[in-house]
């Protein structure tokens, strides 16, 4: 097994992809690497399996001349139960065309050979090769050495003067062109034949000129005398023999150690040449040069292959749309070029001349180097470059040698897309891309496009195996965070050159409805949240709301916070006034203590990733915070601020305050003012909102009941979406027209509607942590989990959390409209894609393995068995066993007779029946080779009687057969 050039290149490409993946931590590149690597692994395995049961023998034609190329017949047999594909015999003159050998069948192919030496030649290096399945590796199987006899060259010479010849033979032969004498036969007209010899009747019948040949048989006898046994003399003698035999003379041969009695005819010529071939050292086999692999001429070209590549090009073009930084409009502008290119390739031209392309390439290079690179950043400039290359290739003819180059460019373009996108649409394109590559590789390594129905199922199975292997590879390839340091782009700061044009999800400290347009989800990590004590393993992991900033003033579009000054008491100290609405937190060392009453709640450790905000994230209202350096303040909305932003990240512990307790509880006269402000409403033209609230809270008097009703209505009847039509959707639009939006709309709607119902509310931004990492025992909080919700002030409960946003992944019962349902599915898939593929890193990896651990697996299995499914399992197993039994039964119940057992015993001893042999022929072969095993012949006859005559063997016959079998086995 050897790698081909394509194979070496693919290995390099896989390495390059892995390096890129490791140094960027991009999981789509890991995905691409897993696919490439699993294709390589499968290629090795499938290649070996492919030639598993293959053997071959060579048959030369009856006459072979020295140095004259001839076609030998290679019979390839396949003993395995699956077809051997793309097999080609290889000899010193190159390879024969590849072919498929059917399962348990055989195939005969012609292989060009030439024998360099006169006499016996030993061909040792013949072999079978296969590029199956993808052309990455050549699997080889050597053939046993063959001895072939090369006759000396017998040129159409004249009788040499030194040879004795009957003079009449020379004059009367005349090349067989005389018109008298016996009719010899018709043959095709050769240049130089006399036109008078043309047989017009036959010519008319055959459709091309035919000459009638007459032979005159001269009376005469020639003895050719061989001077020596060197090749020159032998070839001279051979020419003479041929000349005289063809002239019709009775020809014989004498020489050192050689004597052939004179006779006439072609058979005699054969005998003469054979004698000459074996004369002297011709009788000892000489080694002929071994097999030489055909030079790699590039992909096996075909119309179908080229069409497939155009399809691949279209696929890559589609994939380019996934790069957010490339504008969709400019990509669409290139759309007409695609069918135009297809049309040109189907027609075969006319393509723009090379000089035009040279000039264009130069201009493009200059633009990229001088402007684009600095303006758009490295990644985008690369995208431009590859886009240009794609167009360049689309509008140039593809010579056979450049077919692979074109696919390489396609690969690089797809590689680039993998590096620059996180869209879930990548996945279907990725699957299509793999199918394209699989088909392309199969075709380029020689599969017959017209017989696609034959090999496509095998390719499908390979792709399925590749998917399984690739998934495992993707999961287990270690993710090393430290490697990112080696990323040359990051090291040189070039990644900062990249411009991000559209907004991504993430935490913000201001809330303006419709500010961002469509949001892309960012998988960037925001923090790790470690609850202490951690939830019990196997239990339900609740979502945790990480509180950031709160806002209480809404002007119809944006939420703001207007400072509210108040007097407060420092913990254990004196009364102070706020400055700018901010109250200082009392600290002792690193420990900050908030004024609150009651027993503190659970403790959380927060590991904050770098973030450009100075908000101290808490869970609920804080009671104590440990680890934030410098001063800290809180304001009338109970938000906590540090003195500087966490641009280098941070780590601190938060002790949650008891329910209902707030830092501002102890402030003098603040509550009433804050609640009054939490009831301020924006305009409600037409009173639509008020009407809506009235409808929703009809019959309800309790504030809590009203708030619950509003939140649940919003959850049930409105849809969550990150999409936007580009317009600034207002709250009214959201409530009455689009009925879909992101969490800010839901939180705002809940807050405003509750205010209209008389409940004071404020809007809180933060994170909803839901991704529990079992391995690290922490919540993995990403920017995509940034969230907004509402806090409502309920009498006797204080500030209560209301999250009116419907869950992204669940299907709400009220959302029964089809489109809405589809949207939710899409959102769920998107969430899955981001959390399972894009955000897969070393922690998720270890977490996945931990979850997969055997103890858990068995635990699950036990639960399964105990549950209702457990009752069904025996039935399923039973049905499976029954099905298997029914399928296997005929074979199990079929009586194998003594012959079949003997055949198996012989096969173990190396005597295998060839697929095309009947038992009787096989027995004959065995008896010839190993006469002591002749008993097989009798067994074969008995087998025939039982198998084909329908007769049942009597006890006597069975006893005899058993005795024969025992005898046979003992002699084996």
């Amino acid at each position, binding site marked *: 097994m050897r790698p081909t050039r394509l194979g070496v290149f693919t290995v390099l490409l896989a390495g390059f992809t892995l390096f890129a993946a490791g140094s960027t931590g991009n999981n789509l590149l890991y995905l691409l690497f897993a696919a490439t690597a699993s294709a390589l692994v499968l290629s090795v395995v499938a290649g070996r399996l492919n030639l598993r049961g293959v053997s071959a023998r060579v048959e030369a034609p009856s006459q072979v001349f020295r140095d004259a190329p001839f076609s030998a*017949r290679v019979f390839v047999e396949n003993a395995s139960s699956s077809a051997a594909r793309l097999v080609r015999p290889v000899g010193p003159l190159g390879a024969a065309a590849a072919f498929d050998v059917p399962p348990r069948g*055989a195939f005969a192919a012609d292989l060009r050979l030439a024998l360099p030496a006169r006499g016996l030649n030993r061909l040792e290096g013949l072999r079978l090769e296969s590029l199956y399945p993808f052309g990455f590796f050549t699997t080889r199987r050597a053939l046993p050495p063959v001895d072939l006899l090369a006759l000396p060259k017998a040129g159409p010479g004249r009788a040499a003067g030194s040879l004795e010849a009957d003079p009449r033979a020379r004059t009367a032969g005349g090349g067989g062109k005389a018109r008298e004498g016996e009719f010899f*036969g018709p043959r095709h007209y050769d240049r130089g034949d006399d036109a008078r010899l043309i*047989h017009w009747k036959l010519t008319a019948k055959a459709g091309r000129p035919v000459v009638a040949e007459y032979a005159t048989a001269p009376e005469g006898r020639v003895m050719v005398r061989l001077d020596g046994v060197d090749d020159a003399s032998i070839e001279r003698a051979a020419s003479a023999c041929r000349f005289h035999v063809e002239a019709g003379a009775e020809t014989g041969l004498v020489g050192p150690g050689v004597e052939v009695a004179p006779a006439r005819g072609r058979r005699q010529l054969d005998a003469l040449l054979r004698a000459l071939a074996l004369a002297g050292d011709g009788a000892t086999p000489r080694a002929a040069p071994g097999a030489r692999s055909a030079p790699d001429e590039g992909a096996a070209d075909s119309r179908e292959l080229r069409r497939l590549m155009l399809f691949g090009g279209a696929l890559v073009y589609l994939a380019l749309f996934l790069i957010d930084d490339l504008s969709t409009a400019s990509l669409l502008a290139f759309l007409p070029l695609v069918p135009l290119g297809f049309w040109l390739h189907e027609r075969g031209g006319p393509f723009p001349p090379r000089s035009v392309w040279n000039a264009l390439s130069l201009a493009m290079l200059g633009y990229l180097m001088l402007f684009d690179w600095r303006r758009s950043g490295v990644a985008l400039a690369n995208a431009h470059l590859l886009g240009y290359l794609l167009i360049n290739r689309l509008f140039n003819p593809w010579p056979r040698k450049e077919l692979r180059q074109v696919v390489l460019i396609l690969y690089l373009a797809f590689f680039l897309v993998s590096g620059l996108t996180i869209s879930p649409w990548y996945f279907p394109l990725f699957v299509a891309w793999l199918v394209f590559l699989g088909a392309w590789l199969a075709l380029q390594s020689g599969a017959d496009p017209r017989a696609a129905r034959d090999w496509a199922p095998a390719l499908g199975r390979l792709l399925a195996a590749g998917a399984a292997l690739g998934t495992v590879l993707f999961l287990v390839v270690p993710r090393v965070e430290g490697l990112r340091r080696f990323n040359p782009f990051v090291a040189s700061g070039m990644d900062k050159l990249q411009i991000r044009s559209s907004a991504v999800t993430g935490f913000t400290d201001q809330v303006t409805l419709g500010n961002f347009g469509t949001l892309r989800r960012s998988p960037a990590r925001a923090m790790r949240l470690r609850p202490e004590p951690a939830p019990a393993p196997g239990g339900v992991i609740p979502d945790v709301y990480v509180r950031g900033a709160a806002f209480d003033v809404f002007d119809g579009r944006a939420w703001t916070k207007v400072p509210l000054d108040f007097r407060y008491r420092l913990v254990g100290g004196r009364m102070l006034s706020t400055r700018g609405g901010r109250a200082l937190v009392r600290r002792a060392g690193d420990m900050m203590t908030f004024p609150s009453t009651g027993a503190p709640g659970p403790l959380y450790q927060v590991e904050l990733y770098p973030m450009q905000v100075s908000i101290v994230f808490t869970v609920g209202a804080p009671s104590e915070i440990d680890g934030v350096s410098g001063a800290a303040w809180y304001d009338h909305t109970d938000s906590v601020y540090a003195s500087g932003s966490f641009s280098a990240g941070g780590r601190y512990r938060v002790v949650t305050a008891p329910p209902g307790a707030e830092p501002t509880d102890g402030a003098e006269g603040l509550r009433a003012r804050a609640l009054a402000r939490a009831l301020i409403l924006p305009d409600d033209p037409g009173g639509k909102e008020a009407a809506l609230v009235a409808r929703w809270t009809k019959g309800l008097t309790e504030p809590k009941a009203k708030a619950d009703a509003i939140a649940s209505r919003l959850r049930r009847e409105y849809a969550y979406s990150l999409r936007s039509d580009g317009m600034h959707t207002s709250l009214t639009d959201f409530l009455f027209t689009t009925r879909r939006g992101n969490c800010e709309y839901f939180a705002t709607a809940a807050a405003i509607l509750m205010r209209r119902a008389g409940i004071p509310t404020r809007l809180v931004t933060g994170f909803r942590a839901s991704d529990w990492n079992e391995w690290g025992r922490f919540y993995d909080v990403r920017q995509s989990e940034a969230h907004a919700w509402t806090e409502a002030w309920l009498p006797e409960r204080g500030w209560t959390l209301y999250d009116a946003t419907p869950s992204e992944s669940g299907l709400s019962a009220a959302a029964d409209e089809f489109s809405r349902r589809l949207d939710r599915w899409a959102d769920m898939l998107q969430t899955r894609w981001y959390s399972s593929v894009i955000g897969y890193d070393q922690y998720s990896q270890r977490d996945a393995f931990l979850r997969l651990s055997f103890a858990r697996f068995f635990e699950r299995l036990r639960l399964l068995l105990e549950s209702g499914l457990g009752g069904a399992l025996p039935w399923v197993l039973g049905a499976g066993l029954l099905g298997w039994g029914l399928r296997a039964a005929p074979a199990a119940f079929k009586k194998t007779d003594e012959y079949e057992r003997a055949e198996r015993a012989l096969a173990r001893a190396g005597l295998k029946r060839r*697929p*095309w042999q*009947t038992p009787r022929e096989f027995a004959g072969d065995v008896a010839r080779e190993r006469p002591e095993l002749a008993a097989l012949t009798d067994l074969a006859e008995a087998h025939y009687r039982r198998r*084909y*005559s329908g007769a049942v063997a009597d006890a006597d016959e069975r006893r005899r057969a058993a005795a024969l079998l025992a005898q046979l086995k003992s002699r084996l």
Partner: protein
Amino acid sequence: MSTAKTSAPSVQPLIDSVARVFVGKPDAVKLTVMTLLARGHLLIEDVPGIGKTLLGVALARAFGVTFRRIQFTNDLLPSDILGLSVFDPKEASFDFKPGPIFSHVLLADEINRSTPKTQSALLEAMSEGQVTIDGKTHALPDPFLVIATQNPVEYHGTFPLPEAQLDRFLMRVRIGYPSHADELRILRERDRPATAEDMRPVLSREEVLALQARVDEIRVDEAILDYAVRLAEASRAGKGVRLGLSPRGTLALARAARANAVLEGRDHCVPDDVKTVAAPVAAHRLLLDTSLYGVARVDEAEQAVMDLLHTVRAP
């Protein structure tokens, strides 16, 4: 079936009797008898002078039925074979004079020397088993065996049989030159009375009919039929083959295999039967890429069949 086994006559005397006259080629004799048993017709193709006619005569004599011989020439007319209606002035009516085809064994010597018109008249009679002249249908005798001989097509002055008509022959047989010893024996025994004319019948017509009936009763396993069909399919897909085996060819293959089983005294077919008869039954039905004048050379076609046998899995 067991009764048929005991009561039916043996073929061996017939083979022995013919082989005594037709020296040194037991295989050719066997194939000929096989054709008779399978109710087929035989085409012998070889160079002149190796005893094609003798084989036909010997077979006819050996089972004591009428034997006629027609030497085909290029001026032979269909009526020369089938017969014609002659006006009888006394009776003032047409009187049918049967032609030489009304015999049990008909030797059509050098069939490719006659014009296609005459050839087709004979071949039609062969496949229909009856002759229609002037609106009257005359049944041919039963058993009816045509042994046609022809020179290899590459010889001069011939009208090669088109493949559709070749298909009607069950087998094409090559005889080949006798060995040195056999040729010597032929020369020596020329004087002995063991020539065709002196032979005595060893089987009656009824016995031959019984043998033919036995062919129909031969048990053929599904696996063997499957093998024959796979051979035919492989011939259609084979490399270098322009036209493969027709379904009629597959039928012929199965039938000849049964006849071979009868010949070997069995009441069932084995895979080797198919292999034995494959070359003579299939070779003339193949059209190879290398065929000259639309007909494959004998040895090339037989090689192609051998290649087939070496590629298709045997049961």
